[in-house]
């Protein structure tokens, strides 16, 4: 197991380096530069390029960037917050995005699991249909529609939650964005759980377990659900990525001071350093999640653990 984890960690680091390189090249291939404004003359642009080292060959820039990054220096923002170190920009924003994302995953996974279970156990009944309808809506309606809908009903009409994120009231401010973000996860998990559970419930070992006289709760949770969970965890990982992309829009709607809104602004104004740093962080988080998922497999399914140890 240890050897397996070590191997996975090393691969992850390699992947991250490759990602930085690709990001770096992509950013420099992107049309325009951070300094294409009507008001900037050619001379001024040259001054700014040399100030930030953008007049150097791209190889030199990249080398410099990686060296600085290893020292924890992601550079400074060129225009969305002039000359502010990126690390400072991200510091206060990342926890907010992560918290909302975490709530959303938790909420989505839990509710999705319950809906899926109900649908599977009550297959072909009205309950099943209701659960299926909920999950179809959840999958097909984009999160910003939910966000606006929630904002209008819970926020504007009923005044249950603040429409604008307030750092003074973080818990209440996180409710609507978390729900909006969780919808897709919830719906996907519900659909998946239903399919998996139906398959597991119909399997022969379930029949055997039932005929052994196992009690219903044990039967469902320790035999059926446990077997159904493995594929569900597999889909959960990519869903977390959808969550990150969803947060870009949802953060905008609720005026959340998170990294998503920062990234959108940075992309629009070609703020290279911010875009690279944030994309890097997103990638790092994704890779970390995949790593955790791989390890989780081993815990849930002893066969995988044994198999990997054999490698």
């Amino acid at each position, binding site marked *: 197991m240890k050897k397996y984890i070590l191997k996975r960690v090393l691969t992850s680091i390699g992947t991250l380096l490759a990602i930085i390189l690709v990001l770096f090249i992509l950013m420099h291939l992107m049309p325009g530069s951070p300094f*294409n*404004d009507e008001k900037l003359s*050619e001379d001024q642009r040259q001054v700014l390029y040399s100030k930030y080292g953008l007049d150097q060959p791209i190889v030199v820039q990249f080398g410099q960037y990686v060296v600085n990054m290893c020292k924890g220096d992601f550079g400074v923002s060129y225009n969305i917050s002039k000359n502010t170190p990126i690390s400072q920009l991200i510091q206060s924003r990342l926890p907010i995005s992560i918290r909302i994302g975490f709530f959303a995953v938790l909420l989505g996974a839990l509710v999705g699991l319950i809906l899926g279970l109900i649908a599977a*156990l009550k297959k072909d009944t009205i309950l099943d249909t209701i659960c299926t309808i909920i999950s179809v809506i959840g999958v097909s309606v984009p999160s910003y529609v939910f966000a606006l809908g929630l904002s209008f009903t819970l926020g504007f009409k009923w*005044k249950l939650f603040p429409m*604008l994120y307030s750092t003074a009231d973080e818990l209440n401010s996180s409710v609507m964005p978390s729900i909006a973000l969780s919808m897709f996860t919830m719906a996907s998990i519900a659909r998946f759980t239903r399919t998996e559970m139906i398959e597991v419930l119909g399997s022969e070992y379930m029949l055997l377990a039932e005929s052994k006289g196992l009690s219903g709760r044990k039967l*469902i949770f320790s035999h059926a659900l446990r077997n159904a969970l493995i594929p569900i965890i597999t889909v959960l990982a990519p869903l977390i990525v959808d969550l990150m992309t969803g947060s870009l829009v949802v953060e*905008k709607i609720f005026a959340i001071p998170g990294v998503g809104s920062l990234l959108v602004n940075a992309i629009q104004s070609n703020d290279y350093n911010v875009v690279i740093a944030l994309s890097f962080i997103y990638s790092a988080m994704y890779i970390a999640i995949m790593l955790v998922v791989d390890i989780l497999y081993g815990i849930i399914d002893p066969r995988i653990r044994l198999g990997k140890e054999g490698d």
Partner: protein
Amino acid sequence: MKKRILAFVLAATMAVGMVGCGSKSADTAATTTEGGAATASASSDLNVMIETPVESLDPQQATDGTSFEVIADYTDGLMQMDSDGNPVNAIAESYEVSEDGLTYTFKLRQDAKWSNGTAVTAADFVFAWQRAVDPEVASEYSYMLSDIGQIVNAEAIIAGEKDKSELGVTAVDDYTLEVSLNVPVSYFLSLMYFPTFYPINEEFFTSCGDTFGTSPETTLSNGAFVLDSYEPAATAFHLTKNADYYDASRVQLSGLNYQVIQDSQTALMSYQNGDLDITLVNGDQVEQVSADPEFQTIGAGYLWYVSPNQKGVKELSNLNIRLALSNAINRDDVTSQLNDGSLPTYTAVPRDFSADFSADQEKFKSVCADDAEAAAKYWEEGLKELGTDSITLEMIVDDDDAPKKVATVLKSEWETTLPGLTVEIVTEPKKQRVQDMQEGNFELGLTRWGPDYDDPMTYLGMWVTDCANNYGLWTNSEYDSIIAECTTGDLCTELDARRTRLYDAEQIVMDEAVIFPIYTAANATLVKANVSGIDFHPVALNRVFKDTVKQ
């Protein structure tokens, strides 16, 4: 089966439990929000919506309207704007202009203090202005001191040829500032309220190191408000009334509460909810709120125009084709599509700007009007001269709502009025579009220009030969000489004659259809009925809250 039912009941209980928790916290939330709203309306903090976060609180680095507005909330320059946009004394108590118009001597008021208690002195201005031209600072607005302000040696310092200490500004004593100019500049005083010219206390600046302007602790106020919560790119921040402001009795608000909202739906709902006192309204929402007495449109000063590339595109070097394109547009259709209060414009200088320079919108109607008939005639003539019967042109447009809307109207009107014309719209991210136009890599380009100072020259100065913003690469020696005469020549001091000459210059631009002016942009805005005294300006500081009252 029974056991399965049990499991289901369990699951259901869990679900109900969760919902229960949810609604409980919801109840608490309801009380908090209501409580919060009550406090907000009771205090006289003005809740202001802004579309983008502040880019920089360094007065010599900032370039965008939001940053300027916030800097000016807590900083006074030598001059400030009165409600009509005229320069009146701020930190300057009085000023003298030498007879030749080349030397300005400002006497500073002695009761102006920075928020750390030190006095605001002439040295603070010298330090800040030297920063503005320092090549190491690379201020984007350094040209406000050189080309526009014409301060002695500014140009050479920016180019790295002279030391910044040689800039033509000196602190004669603590409260006397002397500025020397290359040529008389008629609008010089109106530059003094532009944030690039705002003072910085050198000692404080040095003590902050790289962190200047990134937090309340690293900013100093000498103005109406003091920053008390802020972080870089903050989506919400707050300023409190400055009790030590020399003119504190004038300021009625207890503070300013800024909120960045990038989604227009959220902004409108927050306004209707009472969380905001002033907000911008998107063109699509105008219909919904236009009957509201709180709705108003405020001139934003920006001129939107189409620039034809005359050098790179044979068809567009033909005057008749250009005149046809300019006259074939129905500008009312464009502005009614935008529906935000934007005004159709038939002059190269936008409307409601610089003592209403462009008050007479029919001045150039013989060459620029919504005149399909004349356009068709020009078109026919032009095609004949070119010896062709069809032309395809490509127009580059920013990938934003308003420009795309405008482009669609333009395309359809051009194609209906001018037979044989096909216009292809290419949308690009703004930075790319600007780059393409600056490099001459376009045919038609929809672009805009906002005024930097209160003089028609901020527009007319663009179309001289070799100016980087003369996208169409048009050149006309007579035009160049008029502009030179009005910038650095004899007319600098004779203001009436200068104004007349500027009209002559504008006439050339219009006769030659160097640009096709489309509209002067406006901001559709909602301001609560209990709020009065917000000063709106098209130049430099778009909103000033010093005299604002919230009842």
